[in-house]
């Protein structure tokens, strides 16, 4: 894993925000930086952060596995996160998920708690369920990358995917 100079500088800036003996507090910002850069958090990324912060890699692995926002697997070109918490579930998020997968050519049959992401055969889309995205009144909702989409009913999914070339 090559960490670009500018990224390392950004990381160092974050670390400076915290007292020397509390460097570990910069763990989350650093992980976000790396996920932004590489699309996911690789084992090397975990070791890189641990070394940067002078901590054990397990302490970083704890965070990466605790927060569902961090991915340990490379996503597709566009990564979709469909909310499945109660309101969205009642609004039909499972049908939305099914429809998106059908249209994008994604097979979710091997997805598990430990491997939640499925990728389309062409690598264009990847998808996973997420917990409440804080827009419960307008479910089903989803994120594509950082774009937020509301009321993604099955019939709207085709139009949704067309926005991403």
């Amino acid at each position, binding site marked *: 894993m090559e960490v670009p100079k500018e990224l390392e500088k950004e990381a160092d800036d974050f670390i400076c925000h915290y007292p020397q003996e509390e460097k570990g507090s910069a763990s989350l910002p650093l992980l976000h930086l790396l996920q932004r850069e590489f699309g996911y958090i690789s*084992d090397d990324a975990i*070791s890189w952060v641990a070394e940067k912060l002078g*901590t*054990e*890699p*397990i*302490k970083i*692995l*704890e965070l990466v*596995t*605790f927060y569902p926002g961090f991915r340990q697997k490379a996503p597709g070109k566009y990564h979709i996160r469909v909310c499945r918490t109660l309101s969205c579930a009642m609004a039909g998020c499972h049908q939305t998920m099914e429809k998106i997968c059908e249209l994008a050519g994604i097979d979710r049959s091997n997805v598990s*708690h*430990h491997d939640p992401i499925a990728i389309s055969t062409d690598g264009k889309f990847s998808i996973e369920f997420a917990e409440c995205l804080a827009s419960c009144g307008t479910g089903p909702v989803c994120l594509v990358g950082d774009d937020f989409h509301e009321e993604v009913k099955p019939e709207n999914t085709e139009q949704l995917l067309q926005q991403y070339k």
Partner: protein
Amino acid sequence: MVASKDSGENLVSVQVDDHWISVPRGTRMIEACKQAAAEVPHYCYHPKLTSPGNCRMCLVEMGMPPRPSPGEEPELDADGHAKINWMPRPVIACANTVVDGMGIRTQSLLAKECRQGVMEFLLINHPLDCPICDQAGECTLQEYSVEHGNGQSRFLESKVKKPKNVEIGPRIRLDDERCVLCSRCVRFSKEVVDDDVFGFVDRGSHSVLTVHPDRKLENNYSLNTVDICPVGALTSNDFRFKMRVWFMRETKSLCTGCARGCNTVVGSREGKIYRQSPRENNDVNSAWMCDTGRMEYHQLENPARLTEPMIKRGKKHRTVDWPEAICRAARDLTKFKGEQLAIIASGRMTNEELYLTRTLAESLQPGVVDIVKREGEGDDYLSHCDKNPNVNGARKVLKIRSPGSKLKSIRKRIVEDKIKALLVIGEDLIDCGFTEGELSSLQCLVSSHIIANPTAKMSHVVLPGAGYAEKRGSMINATGRLQRLNKAIDPPGQSREDWEILHELNRAVDGCDGVTELADVFTQMASTLSIFKGLSLSRIGDLGVDVMDTGETVPLLEREARRVSEGLIVG
């Protein structure tokens, strides 16, 4: 505050299950309950570690005296204490400290329901494999299930599968399905031995304890995590599936792996040792011991153990009975005097054995007496660089000034044919640089050891002794503490406790020595040597007594004391 004014002694009054007790200010609620004989069940709490308060097993009901408005007198109960207002919400007893006038209920309905609830959650994903679990019989999950559990499960869904039989280090296996996520192992590794290897990955019911794939739990104190794990999640490869714990006899003893003299419990059954674990002694080893020391008992299972006394005839040894061996040894040794005779004893011997060596030397008058120096690697925790467990004993009892300093000249004088006879107790001279040529030039070589080592092979008389867990006696550790070794099992075959061998030799050389049992040796020693004055073998007690000031301190204990004074741990 209110009822009982601070008497200046810094004590506070606390009501535990309707009884008032006095405890020092700052006492944890759980410790106050313990003093009131109300044991509060707990998983994550360990007095030697910080208290994260994560298991919630120690929930109790708590109340405080009301704060009277100015001028108002508090309402008092029959004992003169302010009436307690009970809080509707339970609190954890492990991480909270008492205040004056506080009330604690450990047996109320609320407290009981809390425990039941916590137990139910803990058992949801637990595999309930007690029949094949090494922890069974000493597992707090089992114990608390009996005392505080529901007796039946309401869980209908399927259990979460987690990693099992994971090799997380060379000596330990992890079963994540049994883990109650108490984090004791995490904290021990981080706080006590500065090896922050453990962590919890994932979340919710999928949380598992683990180590990073590139890291192992392999520090020399790793097995202590097995001891403090309240369940069977961490098991020792050495003990795994070997013995049900309730069949074992437990003997309080010492580790003799180095001059620290860690206090231990030896678990044995029918003459075989199955495990050795640390016993708490806050003046010696806190509650820990090193892995190297813990595994030392395996040396007693060495297939080359000597089991019978032997006499050399020509090139071969033949087994003889004890009277013949002792008689021959005494006869041969007494042929030589002064310059011609040397005694090499061992810093692994007990004080009693050293004392009998001393009386023997008084009769035999050897030109020189020394012990073998045993330098090794120590660390900043417990392990001492002096691997002789009783050098201080050898200094005081056998008057050895500088251990090992005379060995070179002994070798030289053997070569010069000045030393013709050698009595070696508990050491292998070949291992200490002596050559076979040197030993074979001796006219008389008598040795005692537990292993058929090269020295035994060269000896004219071989006296099989007992290993450290096969005998009783006392030793003085690096900080000058006199401690007692106890016998867990019998020495194999005809081999004998070394004090008996030396006692017999003394008698053969000098007639009567006034000793009939081991305790007599100590009594004689106590009347001769001022540091043992007023003591007897039984008076040493399980935790030992300080008899010397060596000026040494124990780094691990000092750090522990600092954490206690900072209020981080109870100690």
